């Protein structure tokens, strides 16, 4: 046995070149494909909705970026550019944010089950937004801001609860997450039941998500945060790769563990906060999409995080299209669809690994 190995190493022949290494080229290719897919999805889903629009004319108008009305009536034009497109873009921003945040939490916490919804971070953001609606109702900017604060506090709570003597083991983390998320869900139901629904929305909004209320001011904010957040997290991808192997290992290899942890927590909370403030909690995105990305592209975060961003955007766009067309002209909450798709998908993924 030893002789054979020594032979091999001496001959340098039977050395198997790595198949799975993630290279810059591979990442670029994946991103190119996914972004094209995303663009196509945006265009195609804008053609679909509870009102029928002429496909050709709509495409023409879309490709002209709204400058030409083509053959659309004013109403149709408004439907396309004032209602549908903003909603689709919001879906992309929310999906991308949540998936990226999920991928980062999973890497940082070394736990494949870490997800904004399951960890209670989405609910923390929801409570923050509710506080903003109650006390600062008129000020739109208070919502993503307080949602961010809520998400951050929930993150701290989960992290503290999970930290035992041996550090945050995955079991403790999941447990802490379940405690925080169920507690906050109850708070949400409690407050929404007591308070006037017109002021703070019903709890189905908070717990199941709803993309129909696109504010003109907050949409650009959501998009900017989604893109910027994804970039910052992707920039820390290599550090996250090492952190996935253990904090001690990462430290020894030169990763500034404390700094990376703070950055990830802050940015991920911001991403979750802006998403929840705009659309309530959309669950499963942060869980299923990163797993799909890892399954098809490997665990290297340098490819997984951007892939999750694009994939999450795609996932929620598709889910929302279903939510707004399947019982048209009525609508379903998008979180119900992501759960209906996400849960079986997740079971399938679990069986594959």
């Amino acid at each position, binding site marked *: 046995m030893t002789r054979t190995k020594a032979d091999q190493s001496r001959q340098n022949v039977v050395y198997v070149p*790595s198949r799975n290494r993630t290279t810059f080229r591979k990442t670029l290719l994946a991103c190119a494909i996914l972004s094209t897919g995303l663009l196509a999805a945006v265009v195609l889903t804008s053609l679909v909705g509870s009102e029928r629009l002429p496909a050709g004319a709509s495409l023409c108008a879309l490709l002209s970026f709204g400058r030409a009305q083509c053959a659309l009536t004013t109403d149709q034009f408004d439907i396309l550019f004032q209602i549908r497109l903003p909603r689709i873009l919001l879906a992309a921003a929310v999906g991308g944010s949540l998936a990226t945040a999920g991928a980062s939490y999973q890497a940082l916490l070394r736990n494949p089950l870490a997800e904004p919804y399951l960890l209670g971070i989405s609910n923390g953001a929801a409570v923050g937004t509710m506080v903003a609606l109650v006390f600062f109702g008129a000020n739109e900017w208070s919502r993503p801001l307080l949602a961010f604060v809520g998400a951050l506090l929930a993150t701290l709570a989960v992290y503290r609860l999970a930290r035992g003597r041996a550090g945050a083991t995955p079991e403790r983390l999941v447990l802490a997450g379940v405690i925080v998320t169920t507690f906050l869900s109850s708070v949400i139901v409690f407050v929404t039941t007591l308070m006037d629904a017109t002021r703070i929305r019903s709890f189905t909004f908070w717990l199941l998500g709803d993309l129909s209320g696109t504010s003109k001011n907050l949409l650009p904010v959501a998009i900017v945060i989604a893109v910027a957040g994804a970039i910052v997290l992707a920039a820390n991808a290599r550090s996250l790769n090492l952190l*996935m192997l253990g904090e001690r290992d990462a430290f020894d290899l*030169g990763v500034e563990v404390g700094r990376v942890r703070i950055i990830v927590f802050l940015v991920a909370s911001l991403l979750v906060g802006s998403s929840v403030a705009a659309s309530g909690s959309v669950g499963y995105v942060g869980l299923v999409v990163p797993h799909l990305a890892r399954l098809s592209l490997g*665990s*290297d975060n340098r490819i997984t995080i951007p892939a999750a961003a694009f994939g999450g955007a795609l996932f929620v766009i598709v889910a929302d299209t279903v939510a707004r067309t399947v019982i048209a002209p009525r609508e379903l909450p998008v979180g119900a669809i992501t759960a209906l798709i996400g849960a079986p998908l997740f079971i399938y993924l679990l069986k594959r690994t």
Partner: protein
Amino acid sequence: MLEAHDLTIRYGQRTAVANVSLTLRPGEISAIIGPNGAGKSTFLQSLNGQIKPASGSVLLDGRSLEKFNRRTIGRRIAVVAQEAELRFPITVLEFVLGGRFAWAANASWGWETAHDIEVADEVLRDTELAYLSGRLMNELSGGERQRAVLARALATEAAVLLLDEPTANLDLSHQSTLLALVRKRCEQSHVAALVVTHDINLAAQFADNVLLMKDGKTISIGKPQEVLTPNLLRIVFDVTVLVDAHPITGVPRITPVHDAHRLSQ
């Protein structure tokens, strides 16, 4: 060169390490021997900044460790600890390439260069893992994983190697090849190595310098022949040993004399 001067490390009320000093010189292998709870691993962890000492100082190339940033330390000091957590699938090559992180031009995004791949391939060959480079880490045996951890440490091209029980999971053949590899690295590249181990004979064979610790204190420090004496070993381990010269290699050979009726005394 890494020097530890008069290090004291406390965990709350408990003193884990008390006034221990050690110098790691390039080209030398030092070993720390002692019973469980002697503070060996704690001491090792303070040498790269993982644990902060309550008093005393660690000097890397003459400057205090605190003055360096993490990446620089990562380039100069490498640690071989117990197995990493492997919850996500990662190939051996990717794992070993992790050691090149500290050398990445771009602090965060950095992609591996051709040179990085060369270095990784070379260490994989040295540790006899080349044929496994495309395999997933959790498909490897315990011994193979340990070698991969060593490979990663070697890939950092660090001037100081700190090894915490590196031979714990290895079979006999790989125990000696691993330490022989460390020895070769030390001689060829002027690397200083520190090995924390339970295996006294292995330390006797490979170490130039041995530190005997008990209850956080230095019992003795010096060449193996000077330190590995029956008296000192009895003080440290509370066991009677027989020390003679190994018939082939000439290094001290320590044979414990286990008294089957010891407990009845």
